[in-house]
């Protein structure tokens, strides 16, 4: 308080009247909400204007192809799901060893969209994100804020080979949107129907190759006091995946493209209808364990893997790792490709739905874009990929990593076998994830599997979702060919 020493001055200064103080208080109070949030407000600030000025880079060479600056701390937000986050931490340790002074900070998250939404808007997204899980960010909303990752694929890996030459065929397709390679899907997922090798051996059963065989096996299961299939309420659409796989094998690419491009009547296709019909027969025969629509999905899966109340479960290859702690001893999990509808399908019986999952993205506005890319490059090294397959019992998109014994996992061996048997007959489809349809499809599938819906109801309601999205101009469509 300077007035303590300059008392004369204070006499000259006009007294604050009650009105002026009150007014000042009011102005302040009124200005606070308009001033403060403008800086922090959802869309008021933003770092968009700085997006083009790349972070000060280090020197680019074969050991540091993206020019990551020295002493960088790479900020990675990783989906903490079936695979955990420790494989990225492992890669982070490798990165720290390659670039003395730089480190990786891995933050686990299960709510990617809610957690990162303010950071995307605020212009300070992380350097690397594993945009996966039920709460992932829809790709059509952030596509133009992501780096094209083609330069990673063309860079040499840590061992010196060009990364493109070390990857399986077709693994870049799921992360390519239009002409932009925006997401690097790290884990190779094989979709199929999974069963217990030991249980089948003991009973002399063989895993079915067609839906008719599956139905016959259902009768066998019933005799043994078991069910053929079971499901959990959040995972009812695994049976939709299975049905679409069978239909694509039956009818070929035309089925897939109609669904992917949201064509009218795509769900009424003959191959899909034939699959739905025989599924309905199996449901009506009572070969599905009842009550799935009220059962939490991992609890349901444990009824298959631990209690062995059902013989088969359709899923992606994450199932082994997901149920690791709840699988009966000597279960010997094995898989077969999804069933064919008839004996003469358009694609061979070995044709396989396989795709790369766990999409890693590098936001363009990240503090260290080079750091995010460098961490991905390290993850694609032989050392990091081997670590992943060994600890997670799942293949990555890097080939020639899994040894013949599959690190002791029958499921991993079975995946490698299915992949090599399929050869080039590998297909995938993305429309459910691209347009975020799963949530809406779940209730429909739960009712269908419960036996409460006819094939006609199922078709009509699934078509209604497709049509609504096709006719909504506010949704960006991604043409698939």
């Amino acid at each position, binding site marked *: 308080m300077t007035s303590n020493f300059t008392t004369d001055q204070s006499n000259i200064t006009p007294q604050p009247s009650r009105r002026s103080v009150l007014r000042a208080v009011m102005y302040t109070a009124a200005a606070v909400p308009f001033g403060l949030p403008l800086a922090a407000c959802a*869309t008021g600030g933003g770092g968009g204007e700085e997006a083009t000025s790349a972070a000060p880079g280090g020197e680019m060479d074969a050991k540091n192809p993206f020019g990551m600056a020295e002493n960088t701390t790479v900020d990675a937000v990783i989906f903490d799901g079936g695979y955990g986050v420790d494989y990225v931490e492992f890669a982070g340790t490798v990165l720290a060893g390659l670039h003395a002074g730089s480190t990786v900070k891995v933050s686990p998250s299960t709510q990617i969209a809610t957690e990162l939404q303010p950071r995307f808007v605020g212009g300070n997204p992380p350097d690397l994100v594993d945009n996966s899980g039920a709460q992932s960010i829809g790709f059509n909303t952030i596509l133009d804020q992501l780096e094209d990752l083609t330069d990673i694929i063309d860079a040499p890996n840590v061992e010196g080979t060009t990364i493109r030459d070390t990857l399986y065929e077709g693994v870049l397709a799921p992360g390519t949107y239009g002409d932009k390679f925006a997401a690097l899907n790290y884990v190779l997922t094989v979709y199929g129907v999974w069963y217990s090798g030991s249980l089948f051996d003991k009973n002399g059963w063989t895993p079915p190759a067609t839906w008719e065989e599956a139905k016959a096996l259902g009768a066998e299961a019933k005799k043994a006091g078991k069910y053929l299939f079971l499901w959990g309420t959040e995972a009812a659409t695994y049976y939709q995946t299975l049905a679409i796989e069978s239909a694509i094998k039956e009818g070929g690419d035309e089925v897939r493209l109609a669904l992917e491009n949201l064509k009218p009547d795509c769900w009424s296709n003959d191959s899909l209808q034939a699959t739905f019909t025989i599924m309905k027969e199996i449901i009506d025969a009572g070969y599905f364990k009842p009550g799935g629509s*009220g059962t939490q999905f991992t609890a349901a899966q444990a009824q298959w893997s631990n209690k062995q109340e059902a013989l088969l479960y359709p899923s992606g290859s994450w199932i082994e790792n997901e149920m690791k702690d709840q699988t009966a001893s000597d279960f010997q999990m094995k898989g077969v490709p999804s069933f064919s509808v008839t004996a003469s399908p358009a694609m061979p019986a070995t044709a396989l739905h396989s795709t790369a999952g766990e999409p890693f993205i590098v936001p363009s506005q990240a503090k260290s874009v080079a750091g995010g890319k460098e961490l991905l490059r390290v993850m694609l090294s032989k050392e990091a990929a081997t670590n992943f397959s060994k600890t997670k019992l799942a293949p990555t998109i890097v080939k020639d990593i899994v040894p013949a014994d599959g690190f002791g996992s029958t499921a991993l061996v079975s995946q490698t076998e299915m992949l090599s048997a399929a050869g080039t007959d590998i297909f995938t489809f993305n429309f459910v994830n691209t347009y975020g349809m799963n949530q809406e499809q779940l209730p429909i599938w739960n009712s269908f599997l419960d036996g409460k819906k006819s094939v006609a109801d199922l078709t009509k309601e699934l078509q209604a979702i497709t049509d609504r999205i096709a006719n909504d101009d506010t949704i960006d469509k991604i043409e698939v060919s």
Partner: protein
Amino acid sequence: MTAIPGAGQVLPAGEGAPAGPGRGPRRGRLGGWSFDTVSFFVVFLGLPLALFLVFVIWPFVQAAFYALTNWSGFTTEFDIVGLANFTTLLQDPRFVNAVGNSVMFGLFIPLITIVIALTFAILITVGGAGRGQIRGVRGSGFYRVVSLFPYVIPAIAVGIMWRLILDPSNGLVNGILTGLGLDRFQSFAWLGNVGTAMPVTMFVVVWGFVGFYMLLFIAAIKGVPSEIYEAARIDGAGRWRTSWSITLPLIRDNVQTAYIYLGIIALDLFVYVQALNPQGGPDNSTLVMSQQLFRTAFTEGKFGYASAMGVAMAIVTLVFAALVFTVNRLAGGRSERGRG
């Protein structure tokens, strides 16, 4: 205000007093602007007002503004689209369905909770023996404590717990029912059938709230002088008659408040439905507005449209509150001017 100038005059108004309040000499005319007064205003008026504006009003204004845009939620760019979001909203069958479900919850949850809570409260306070002192049923203290237990458990834990209890294959409910020989409940999915999903969800919410509202009503009934009950009893009024003609009219303001609180909870309900039926229930029969809003914002990346849903939710809630007030007024409740 008027008391403060007096207080100010007590203080020495000496010129240049080192630690004196305010700056410089104090003049008698207005004289109210001591440090006390200003700090009082800042702390007790300015600060709460600022907090209220920043954390309550400003988000409202923001949401109302974004409701007029096509903001995706992940960029800094958006266009103003006017009322287009609201016209889409009215034709969106998913949202209309969600509003319908929310209204069902909003109608039944408060009603059931209050009827049960009120019954218990009356039994515990005045429902005891017909002779002697007015008191509750035997062991009322025990019931009072026990019935509050569910309210102490966080909503998400209540949801998860009931989901396990209602599990079709390993749940307690079906275990007891099949144990009693009711074989049709073998693997019966309480949360997976259109006919049972909503009633069961309501049951879980009611279960969670009855204890608290019972306590609220007990406090209200304790405030009613026991002479009134004694007089009624001497006049020959039975338990039903006292409950209906004395207890209820005397605590109707509490009932109205409880009704509005419960209505607001029931119109939101996000945590419970998300725990019990995260995908919206069979045929979306338990999908509520807040769930659809969350899905639209974060899975579909349409924050502008989701904000419009938020505004619609606010309107539904306000209409609900207005309805409760009107019904209470029409039924002869307290008017603005006093007891009528």
